[in-house]
């Protein structure tokens, strides 16, 4: 019986039940031996297709998380590997991609907004409302003060040069497009992303 890799995992992953081992052609002794083996860890995980966050080869990856996406279950990513069906990487990952789990769970992942006062020596944790209210206020103050509606020749130019933004080359197209809309609606021209480097 020909099995694809995925079907093989499905059949064997359920805890190596006697029936499935029979399908694979194991004899009785094999069944007994398999019964003592720990169930395959990934059998109880949810598999999500994603793309490696590093270079632009864009290797396909499979993310395995605990939790079945039920409303009251919080997913926890426990394993990441190359997607064997992906036409470019065909299941392989490089030394960076192989360690993706460590970046997802890095101890230096940020978990709350933090603020540093002028002249301050430490960060302090703040609420999202505090941070976004204050940022918006600072932006408006600067924009209202420095926005250039006309140049010296009297031409309408409507640009804002005193606040700038660097956009993220690892963010999605959808994030990028929304970011573009926000930045340009404000008249921002000091605006770039890593493609400039």
């Amino acid at each position, binding site marked *: 019986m020909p099995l694809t890799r995925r079907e093989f995992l499905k059949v064997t992953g359920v805890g190596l039940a006697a029936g499935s081992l029979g399908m694979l052609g194991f004899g009785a002794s094999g069944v007994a031996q398999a019964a003592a083996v720990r169930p395959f860890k990934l059998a109880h995980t949810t598999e999500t297709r994603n793309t490696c966050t590093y270079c632009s080869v864009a290797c396909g990856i499979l*993310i395995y998380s605990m939790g079945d996406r039920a409303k009251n279950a919080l997913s926890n990513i426990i394993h990441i590997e190359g997607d064997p069906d992906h036409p470019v990487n065909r299941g392989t990952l490089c030394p960076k991609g192989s360690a*993706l789990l460590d970046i997802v769970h890095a*101890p230096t992942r940020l978990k709350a907004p933090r603020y540093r006062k002028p002249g301050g020596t430490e960060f302090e944790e703040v609420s999202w409302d505090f941070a976004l209210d204050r940022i918006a206020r600072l932006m408006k103050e600067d924009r209202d003060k420095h926005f250039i509606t006309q140049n010296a020749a009297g031409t309408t130019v409507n640009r804002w040069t005193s606040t700038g933004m660097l956009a993220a080359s690892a963010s999605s197209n*959808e994030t990028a497009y929304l970011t573009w809309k926000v930045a340009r609606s404000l*008249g921002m021209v000091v605006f770039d992303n890593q493609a400039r*480097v």
Partner: protein
Amino acid sequence: MTNTWQDIRNANVVIVMGGNAAEAHPCGFKWVIEAKIENGAKLVVVDPRFTRTASVADYYAPIRPGTDIAFLSGVMRYLLEKDAIQHAYVRAYTNASLLVADGFAFEDGHFSGFNGETNTYDKASWNYEFDDQGFAKADDTWQNPRCVINLLKQHVSRYTPEMVSRITGTPQDKFLHVCELIASTAAPDKAMTSLFALGWTQHSVGAQNIRAMAMVQLLLGNIGVAGGGMNALRGHSNIQGLTDIGLLSNQMPGYLSLPTDKETSFDDYMKTKLFKPLRPGQTSYYQNYGKFVVSLQKALWGDAATKENNWGYDWLPKLDVPLYDIIRAFEMMNNGEMTGYICQGFNPLQAFPDRGKIRRGLSKLKFLVTMDPLDTETSRFWQDFGPQNPAKSTEIQTEVFQLPVTCFAEESGSLVNSARWLQWHWKAAEGPGKAMADIWIMSGIFHRLRDMYRKEGGAFPDPILNMTWKYTNPTAPDPEELAKEMNGRALADLTDPVTNVVTKTGTLLDGFGQLKDDGTTASGCWIFAGSFTEKGNQMARRDATDPREQGIAPNWAWAWPANRRILYNRASADLDGKAWNPKKPVIEWNGTRWTGIDVPDYIPTTKPSDNVGPFIMNAEGLGRLFALNLMAEGPFPEHYEPFESPSENVLHPKVPNNPVARVFADDRASFGHRRDFPYVATTYRLTEHFHFWTKHALINAILQPEEFIEIGEVLAKEKGIAQGGWVKVSSKRGEVICKAYVTKRIKPMTVDGKATHVIGVPLHWGFTGQARKGYGANTLTPSVGDANTQTPEFKAFLVNIERTAAPAT
């Protein structure tokens, strides 16, 4: 990339120059190995270091950093002299036969039109000679000395093997052997692919490095064919997408340009974008530019953008300088001309040249916002971390907001890979703690500002108040809604003039061919039209079927434009529409239309006998060996020394560097001279690390735990530097104290008769994360960029090196 990753397997020669794919793009590099094994391909590597790519090459040649144009101009001279060009292709598909205007010339390092006071060019003479009807004149016999091909021959005639070797340090025999291997692909059924990365872009002549190789590829007939092309191996997972969507100072989505002060009205703006064909009967597809712009304006401003208000033209900001690029931004910061800066997933304290200047600039801001999954150096520039980041916190008045965002595994959306594929990915878990998505944060800032402008008024609120924001959840738009907005919709019932098929109002469009310039269509990024249609999310497709096993996989995800996988693929067939390489056809003419394994990059029913050029985006329909006025430095590439160079420019000593590079006075004062800094340095990635991110990941921090430089055995011996010994590397801008790795992989080169040593500076270290603290390569690098793009010159600069004692712990 013009081609796909898997298509590399179709090459007969793979040249890696200006990159190190085996270490920086390992899983893409497998297709180079596949080409070697399955197709008998030869891998040629030209690099200052014997990299891991070089270690599996069939042939390796060393080159001094920053001299690639001299090398490639020598290659062009060789191909023209040996007549190793693909004649039929060059005659029919490039502008080799076209005549150049009389005033155009090159003398003593300058092209015609140079103004020495402003360091700018009047480019009027960088043009074709036109007939009465406005079409470029041509001489298909190439007898006329003003033919592009003859001017090119003359231009590259100075780059003899002796001259190439004298400038580049590449031994003549090695240079000539590389030329021979390259020339072997001039045969119509042979192809070479060029794989490059930041080893070419990060120079004051970066764009011209790439142009030089593109010209080589045109001469060989290697553009548009299977196993050919110019393949930029891009560095970040969506750096292609952010470029496509125009998150660059002078760009709008889909490579439309942001207006300038000179374009005072929409009509003015459009005047330079009419793209009238420069040869009879050519497609010149950018004649549709107006449709793309109006559809973008309709996506941005909706009903508020009308014909009467010029589609909201005044709501777009106008540029008074070519670019507000990052080097300029930090110059402005240092001059006290900036108030705030937002760094979304970007760590300029590590990523931009002259780190001291970056730190001083950030210190002068009123506020800095960082949005990142990780604790970046930039967000902590104000904290003292010892010599790696000396700071007096109490004296720095910048308010800093460090906002935690979700990462790739915690969001859904699409990313564009190097081969222009838009691949959808799915969220696997929530982010940690209170981390939020960038979409939520940007929406939150936007709503707050819009509310304040509604209530309080303020400077020019119109573009903010009119911006469309029709999302089901306005504070957290669904990525699918945004993807559909980029794809575009019909805003009225559209009737196809040929088929009479009606596209109903509100329907998602199938492609950019449906776009209109009368306000009846909206599309936020015209080149993405077709990515999310009424048939569903095309980017989510996952059928890996690959006809002929030729590396196209047309039903896996979706590629812009129009799901086309190989750009310029009309050029893969000869003048009669038959594949140049019958074993690897891409598209062919079947008597009534173009068919094949890829979507034709051509009007599918245009007959081969109609003489329509394959480069349909160019107004003359041809590949350009002569770049007209589109490059800052000139229509042909010319060798200019890096701004910090160990050698004078032996071609024209009075014009040593790129004459039109923009250099700020304080940056020029920070250039070092070879008297004080005698060694050439170049920066690069290690295979174990990705920029400044992976030092936060435990495994990678263990694999490469600390900062080091690489130095050749000869120089190490000369300077008394031991393997693993401590060294101080200094430039005019700063110093790095780290360990030395003494290697056989870098050998001295002879440049203009003198021994020249190269020092390698991997770039991954900083002062946050799990690896040991480091200074960062950008402590040393100069603040000067390419004259077209302002991409900084990280790949060739000068340093000194001395043995030193281990730092006190």
